[in-house]
């Protein structure tokens, strides 16, 4: 009897570690088949697999926010974003009634990544933030160093959620500054040279005071000008129309997945 109780308690403990969102509010039902790391292609070694699995689980439990990774070989012609959204929905990821979470999908054949966000994930993972994570992972993904890329996703994703909860989601203004383009090393002296030519040109003009008079404005007899006829005739008009440039916005854009859930997200190649 004691053994049965121990087994039962262990089961409850495992359950609370692996899918705590479901354990906590009971919404959505049990989904033990849908681990937070699903590597159907086998890009990770066994050690890596369990390490990443633990990392995702721990971070998710700690933040009460699901972070999941799905690796597939081919997308079968579907878009990576659709596939990621469907993986999120079918995996029943997401904490609470809003399904707070983010899922990273990797297609090893199509060399594509996509992130699908839901619930609070839409707030925490802004469009700029998603592209920033993609940028951070790209080199590792391209080199086949998937474990490191997933660590980056877990670490960075966790940070995004923390930042959002502090009231300031990671957005375009937080993107690290790239160094100033080298083109300025050419533009700056060129502008300097143009200014120098203008200034020195005006200094040279000071030395030249002999020039012909173009007109005889100084010799107009005072009060002699009289406009006797003045006609302003409208002929025709033309109207040109140009489309307004769309403003680049910050924040998160959303779309609806095939199951009708609202998702945020973004994708890229590696």
């Amino acid at each position, binding site marked *: 009897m004691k053994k049965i109780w121990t087994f039962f308690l262990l089961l409850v403990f495992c359950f609370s570690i692996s899918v705590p969102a479901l354990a906590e509010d009971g919404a959505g039902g049990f989904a033990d088949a849908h681990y937070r790391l699903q590597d159907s292609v086998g890009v990770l070694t066994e050690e890596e697999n369990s390490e990443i699995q633990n990392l995702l689980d721990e971070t998710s439990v700690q933040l009460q926010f699901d972070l999941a990774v799905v690796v597939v070989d081919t997308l079968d012609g579907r878009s990576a974003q659709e596939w990621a959204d469907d993986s999120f929905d079918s995996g029943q990821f997401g904490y609470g009634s809003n399904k707070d979470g983010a899922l990273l999908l990797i297609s090893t054949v199509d060399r594509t990544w996509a992130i699908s966000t839901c619930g609070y994930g839409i707030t925490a993972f802004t469009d700029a933030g998603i592209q920033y994570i993609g940028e951070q992972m790209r080199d590792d993904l391209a080199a086949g160093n998937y474990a490191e890329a997933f660590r980056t996703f877990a670490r960075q994703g966790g940070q995004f959620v923390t930042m959002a909860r502090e009231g300031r989601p990671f957005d375009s203004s937080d993107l690290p500054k790239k160094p100033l383009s080298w083109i*300025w090393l050419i533009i700056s002296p060129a*502008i300097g040279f143009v200014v120098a030519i203008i200034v020195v040109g005006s200094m040279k003009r000071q030395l030249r005071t002999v020039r012909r008079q173009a007109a005889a404005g100084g*010799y107009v*007899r005072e009060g002699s000008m009289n406009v006797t006829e003045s006609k302003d005739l409208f*002929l*025709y008009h033309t109207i040109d129309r140009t489309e307004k440039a769309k403003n680049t916005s910050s924040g998160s854009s959303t779309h609806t997945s095939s199951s009708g859930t609202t998702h945020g997200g973004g994708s890229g190649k590696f």
Partner: protein
Amino acid sequence: MSHVQEYKCPRCGGAVAFDSGTQKLKCPYCGTEFDIEALESYENDTDSGQTDDMNWETSAGGQWQAGEAEGLCTFVCKSCGGEIVGDENTAATSCPFCGNPVVMTGQFSGALKPDYIIPFKLDKKAAKAALQKHYGGKRLLPPIFRDQNHIDEIKGVYVPFWLFDADAEVSVHYKATSVQNWSDSNYNYTETSYFSVSRSGVIGFEQVPVDGSTKMPDDLMESIEPFRFDDAVEFKAAHLAGYLADKYDVDAAQSTERANTRIKRSAEEAFASTVKGYTSVTPETSIVKLYGGSAKYALLPVWLLNTTWNGEIFTFAMNGQTGKLVGDLPVDRGAARKWTIGITVLCGAVVYGLAWLLHLAGAL
């Protein structure tokens, strides 16, 4: 055979036709519509076939009275051939134009008597002071030019000018546009309205001066303008005492071309200034007709200062009435190069710094 009136489209030049639907004239090529009255008036205005008419009465100058020119004598420059007039007490030794020695050829004779003269108001000292002021504040003037500079000679010369008076009848046509911008949520709109603008009227000019001496560079003489005619007095040979006078060698009739150019330009500018409220104004045709154009022969006071530097003669001229001094100065090429490099480096560094600041602020 009946005459068919054909109107051309002011926009593309195609033949326009009457459009019964809109009851307007419409260009079949560019699709622009016009009011019949507007196009009719435009055609009449731009197709007047008139040309400039700028004729002058150029019998300026008078004849010398017996004995009037007795005290005058003529000097000729052996180098440039310039002929200068002075009174018999003037000890002219060098040519005011080229600096070479002159010889007295004896009694003055020939040429017309000037109608007017503006006597010198400023003396030699004022001319020297004006030259020193002229050197000031010019960073690219070689310091050695300023320091070593000594004026070879300063001469007060009465320069022959033809002064032209005329009333001008002006008729100018412009094509003008007025641009308005507005926008809605999706588009920016630019409406350009085209107008045919015409102005006619009269304007009078008096004492427009034209240099009557080929020895005096025209640009130098035009640079020291204006001369105020208020100080002009009837010419008396006595005014020449102590000064030199140049004899005219370009007559009034030859000088009218220059006067016409300047008068036409000024007349056009004056009438263009009455076309207001448009975004752009382009003159299409302008016709200037002169009435009562007459010329006077006058001697105007000019101080000429010559200096030689590096084998080159630099001539300065000062208006003997107003004190305006002009004259081109040499450029210190070394200093110009240093300034160019210095400003390039400094400005380049400032621009690069600003670019970094803007980059860090997220604007670049």
